[in-house]
């Protein structure tokens, strides 16, 4: 179980690192890459967990590998918090607050949209 979570976490973190390498930020830059990583991860977990709890009798390692491992390793709360702090320390308070609110609202909208989309697809298939 631990190994499966670790493997998934490595894959998720490497995907996040690859995106960071492809989109380097200036010291006071707006952290779009992290915002998108977190929002995409939230949309995917909303759909994944809905399918997993409502229809798919998946192998017992699927959730720890993909949900806990890959998506948990891909998305990050610590970078989100430190990015807000970095913008504040750079004197960009409006950008810091905008980033704080935009990530939170987009992430919550994304997880809801992912779950709702999955339920629509499930409903259509089982009818």
């Amino acid at each position, binding site marked *: *179980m*631990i190994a499966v*979570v*670790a493997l*998934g*976490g*490595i894959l*998720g*973190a*490497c995907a*996040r*690192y690859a995106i*960071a390498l492809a989109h380097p930020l200036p010291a006071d830059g707006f952290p779009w890459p992290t915002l998108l990583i*977190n929002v995409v*991860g*939230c949309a*995917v*977990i*909303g759909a994944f*967990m809905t399918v997993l709890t409502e229809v798919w009798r998946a192998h017992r390692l699927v959730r*720890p590998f993909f*949900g*806990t*491992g890959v*998506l*948990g*390793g*891909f*998305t*990050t*709360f*610590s*970078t*989100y*918090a*430190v990015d*807000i*702090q*970095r913008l504040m*320390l750079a004197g960009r308070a409006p950008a810091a607050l905008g980033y*704080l609110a935009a*990530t*939170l609202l987009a*992430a*919550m909208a*994304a*997880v*809801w949209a992912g*779950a709702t989309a999955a339920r629509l697809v499930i409903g259509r298939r089982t009818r």
Partner: protein
Amino acid sequence: MNWLLVIVGAAVGAPLRYLTDRAVQARHDTVFPWGTFAVNVSGSLVLGLLTGAVAAGAASSQLQLLVGTGFCGALTTYSTFSYETLRLAESGAAFYAVMNAAGSVAAGLGSAFTGWAIAQALWV
């Protein structure tokens, strides 16, 4: 080498999140997701401390990759945080959902600043 640092950090951070969540969730019987809250707040503290240390020249960019990108990145999670908040909202615990969202952000930001302040006190 850089990739290896991220891999090693994530290989420790992700299982530590899993184990912490299990341990914390086994020790209370409320609906509040304290496990994810705990890893997100402590990971933000560590990353704030590390970022402060790097800014002060006391930590290398290699350590940033190992502990920051790898360990803290994998230890903390936005996806589980958002999903657990959605579950609270959908199960009628709207107050807990709002408290989880607002509380996690406030505590995470507070601990990032605390970590930064500790780094300032130690290395500047």
